[in-house]
């Protein structure tokens, strides 16, 4: 287990999520794929937090110890925002479902050139 391995795992998850968000027809599946991407980012952040020196760590450890947690804090916020995003996303999916009788993104393409 190393930083690189962790980052690569995260990158793979991110790529899978990206694929899913681009290639799935169902809006819910897309939302799920996006969550995958957020998770991959979280994983990256936490891994970096563990392995990478925070800014100015060398100068005075005591003053900068909190820096080692920044990545984790970031991850907390991302989880929260992801929750909000899902909530809003579901709201829109329902609104769309009600208005178009479909959650298939390929079919919902009235707005185009």
């Amino acid at each position, binding site marked *: 287990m190393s930083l690189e391995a962790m980052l690569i795992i995260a990158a793979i998850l991110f*790529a899978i999520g990206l694929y899913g968000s681009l*290639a799935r027809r169902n809006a819910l599946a897309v939302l799920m794929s996006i969550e995958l991407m957020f998770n991959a980012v979280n994983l990256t952040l936490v891994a970096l937090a563990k392995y990478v020196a925070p800014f100015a760590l060398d100068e005075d450890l005591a003053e900068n110890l909190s820096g080692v947690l920044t990545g984790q804090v970031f991850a907390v916020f991302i989880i929260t925002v992801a929750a909000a995003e899902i909530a809003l996303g579901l709201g829109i999916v329902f609104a769309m479902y009600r208005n178009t009788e479909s959650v298939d993104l390929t079919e919902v393409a009235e707005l185009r050139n």
Partner: protein
Amino acid sequence: MLFQDVVFWILGIVAIGAALGVVLIKDLFRAALLLVLVFVSVAGFFVMLNAEFLAVVQVLIYAGAISILIIFAVMLTKDVQRGNMPNRLQVPAVLFAALLLSVLVIVAVDTDWNLISEEDQEKVSLVQTSAVANIETEDLEASGLTTDSEQAAARESGLADLLIGDFVLPFEAVSVLLLAALIGSLVLMRPRPPGSTS
């Protein structure tokens, strides 16, 4: 170390496999369940990365709340069984994902990361763990944090302290964000006004 490596690889394979399942399986319901599996394995990674608190949050919020929300949503819409069809963009999507992956891998491998030195690694682990655990003084001393001020700093720099300290502003802002998102979601879920047609 060996144990850690084994767990790491198992978690990695499970996470990636489950993630592939999420995006490839046609049954949306099963995909949602696999998503939970991904979340849980990521939580496992978190534990390995000294982020126990995050692991808990991950399981609670993601595996618990969000997944349940999604599963409800899946069940409320039609075509659950074969609802996860790929669209016409499959080939470019694979291509883009692969390209991005290769870029990210290059970044991960080729970047000269400013890694924490071996001697500091121990201290960092302690501080990061302190977010959820009480740290013994001898542990601190063992890891090289000998002076009082350093020990005090290590104890104070918990995750919670940060959230109401340095990151209080985003913390407040994200609460507003949650509120706004909920209101928005609420409004959008409203029934159609009677008599109107799409």
